[in-house]
């Protein structure tokens, strides 16, 4: 629309650099040292790049799911739980599967979609049927998901040899192919990029995408144009959860090769920032996910070598969200001035 919107992600990147510098100074580290640690940790070699892309992929799935829901006007903040249930479905089935490899992988990914879809769909059904606020319900479902997963993998689904709360390992036939040799980066990243491209196309070219975004932008006008809003609500939240769920399944089949309750360090929450920084445009979200992937994987290195707490990143995410929200206000004002 206008310059401020177009350069939103760049603007956000600049903001990150300024804020991180500030956080480093507070932690009594020179920004140069801190950023060097961060960038070497994230991009310094094939291994580091691999880890960064692993984080990118893990963030990208839930961010795309969140993007779909937000575009439909639904604040899905339950991607964390949807991702976890998707991973649980894949992990539970993967540990007992006995069909040919490639087919097995597809089955596991589909199961991930089903698991995440169910979890998002519950919130969608509650919203469509009872008008229950999806912000609260999706967040509550995160905690329910965590409790359910923990109970299951501590008990009936616990792997025979597992020491902690996790399932048995998947047979290597069900592992996603590795993209960069000697790293953990799996083909899951490619799948995420394909989904991003599909979403972009759906929003831009299809009737479904049109109706979805109309419902999000102007629900009453959409309803009066013959769009069934409650149907759209549960479809959007189900699909949103399904995409996050596939993400969970790719973590299981691509990196961990088992389900573990600790498998997400809050990807589903960081993904909210990723989706917003990416301006709810799937292709920009890919860029944003890479940026946050750098922060995620470089943050650990930064904490280790420059003593800057990794949690700096979460403060920065929050600030970016706030500032971007305010930027929209500035942008509409600019738009009005230009129009008049």
């Amino acid at each position, binding site marked *: 629309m206008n310059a401020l919107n177009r350069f939103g992600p760049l603007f956000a990147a600049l903001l990150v650099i300024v804020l991180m510098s500030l956080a480093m100074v507070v932690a009594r580290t020179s920004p140069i040292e801190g950023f060097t640690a961060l960038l070497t940790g994230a991009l310094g070699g094939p291994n580091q790049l691999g880890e960064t892309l692993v984080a990118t992929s893990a963030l990208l799935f839930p961010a795309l799911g969140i993007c779909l829901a937000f575009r439909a006007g639904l604040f899905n903040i339950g991607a964390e739980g949807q991702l976890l249930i998707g991973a649980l479905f894949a992990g539970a089935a993967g540990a007992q599967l006995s069909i040919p490899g490639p087919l097995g992988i597809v089955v596991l990914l589909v199961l991930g979609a089903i698991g995440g879809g169910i979890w998002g769909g519950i919130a969608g059904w509650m919203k469509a049927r009872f008008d229950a606020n999806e912000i609260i319900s999706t967040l509550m479902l995160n905690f329910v998901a965590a409790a359910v997963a923990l109970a299951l993998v501590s008990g009936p689904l616990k792997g025979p040899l597992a020491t902690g709360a996790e399932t048995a390992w998947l047979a290597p036939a069900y592992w996603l192919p590795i993209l960069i040799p000697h790293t953990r980066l799996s083909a899951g990243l490619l799948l995420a990029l394909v989904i991003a491209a599909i979403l972009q196309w759906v929003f831009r*070219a299809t009737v*479904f995408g*049109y109706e979805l975004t109309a419902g999000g932008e*102007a629900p009453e006008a*959409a309803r009066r*144009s013959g769009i069934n809003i409650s149907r759209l609500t549960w479809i959007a939240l189900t699909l949103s959860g399904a995409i996050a769920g596939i993400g969970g399944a790719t973590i299981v089949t691509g990196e961990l090769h088992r389900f573990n309750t600790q498998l997400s360090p809050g990807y589903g929450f960081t993904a909210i920032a990723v989706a917003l920084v990416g301006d709810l445009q799937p292709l920009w979200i890919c860029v944003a996910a890479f940026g946050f992937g750098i922060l995620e994987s470089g943050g650990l290195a930064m904490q280790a070598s420059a003593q800057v707490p990794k949690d700096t990143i979460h403060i920065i995410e929050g600030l970016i969200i706030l500032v971007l929200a305010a930027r929209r206000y500035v942008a509409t004002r600019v738009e009005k001035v230009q*129009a*008049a």
Partner: protein
Amino acid sequence: MNDRPALELRGIRKAFPGIVAVDGVDLTLQPGEIHALVGENGAGKSTLAAIAFGELQPDEGSVAANGTVGLVHQHFELVGRLRVWENVLLGREPRRGWRIDAEAARARVLDVAQRNGLEIDPDAIVETLPVGVQQRVELLRELDREPSVLLLDEPTAALAPSEIEAFFATIVRLAQRGTAIMIVTHKLQEVIAYSSTVTVMRHGKITATMPTARTSIDAIAQAMVGGEVPALAAREERPRTPVLRVRDLRCGQDERRIDGISLYVASGEIVGIAGVEGNGQSTLADCISGMTNFDGSVEIEHGDRPKMGVIPQDRHREGLVMGWSIVDNVILGRQEALRRGALLDRDRARVEAALIEERFDVRAANLDVAVRTLSGGNQQKIVVGRALIDQPALILAYNPTRGIDVGAAALVQSRLIEARNGGAAVLLISFELDELLTVADRIVVMYRGRIVGAFDRTHFDRTHFDRTAIGRLMAGSQ
């Protein structure tokens, strides 16, 4: 009374980005005068009123008020779920210690009401009151501040004719006691009937100020438009076959209730629904357009034409996606017509948008600008154009010219008449009786969810008698 004017505006200029809304205006209000301020939409009269009230700061010029200034808003600024006294005394609550003194508040509201000859129950919940009484609450809130100047912004827009009379009786009494009154309005009959002076604004400037006694409706209208009012399309008669049949429709509650409505609309005719806002018109429109469940039947005989085109009541909320382009808004509600498999035919939508732009004289930089950036008249033209473009058998138009300027309104009305000439059945719901008298072939009157009268063009075209009769029915008297 002293000789000082109650309100004096000198050299007022107010610019918004890209437009000078008020451009060098001088205006003086004397105590006890009823001053009408008229002009087209966008002429600057609301801006001027806001400056006089102190809501807006002028870029240049001075405002001098001798006492306090009160403003009665067009859309009442009331809190529906609160009581009358809570609304009237909001911000000036009488206290006893830390608490509100509810007894004192009631007494004070009753006192103000009595002194102004208004009847009110201070404990009533505002949203349960009829529109006319709600306006009384808004008026009381201003009167409690004992203003020396009272500004009224389109005060009778939502009132029935009888309520209008009662309202002006109060206003005239206030003026007689020395309050200076300024009425911003577009109802020229009220201007003639009740004002002492009339000022006409056009393009931010005052084009005429005259004593009401020495002018006429035609003269004022010409000063407003700056020339002749554009003529409407001529009507052509053609055979009529029934299109819309509504039988014994029942739906909704309270203000939205409709209670056994039957009517029909044939091809090639415009049927107008007359009535004051809040007598069930919205529910009737929702039933016909399939937006709600109801008892009774709605049949639409549409042949090989598309069934229906709808011009909704509230274009911002119900008709447009404000952040989207003209092209994308032309698609809204027509997704099925533009569907190619799973895809949307945006190329065709663009051609149609260009067609609407041309036929309706939409002023926009290009078809990709957000409709939010267009003027109200241009937005409405898009909504109307979209409803007509597929040549539907039935057109349901709800206040299609509300809040747009005279030129745009005439264009919209002409296109509706042309659609009728082309064989469409048009159901026109309007709160403006004048619009219905100009455009409709038949008028039915709605009151409290029922149809209380029907009139044919062959009558009301010639006689003034039907106008009075319709007005009376709208107010609920036989």
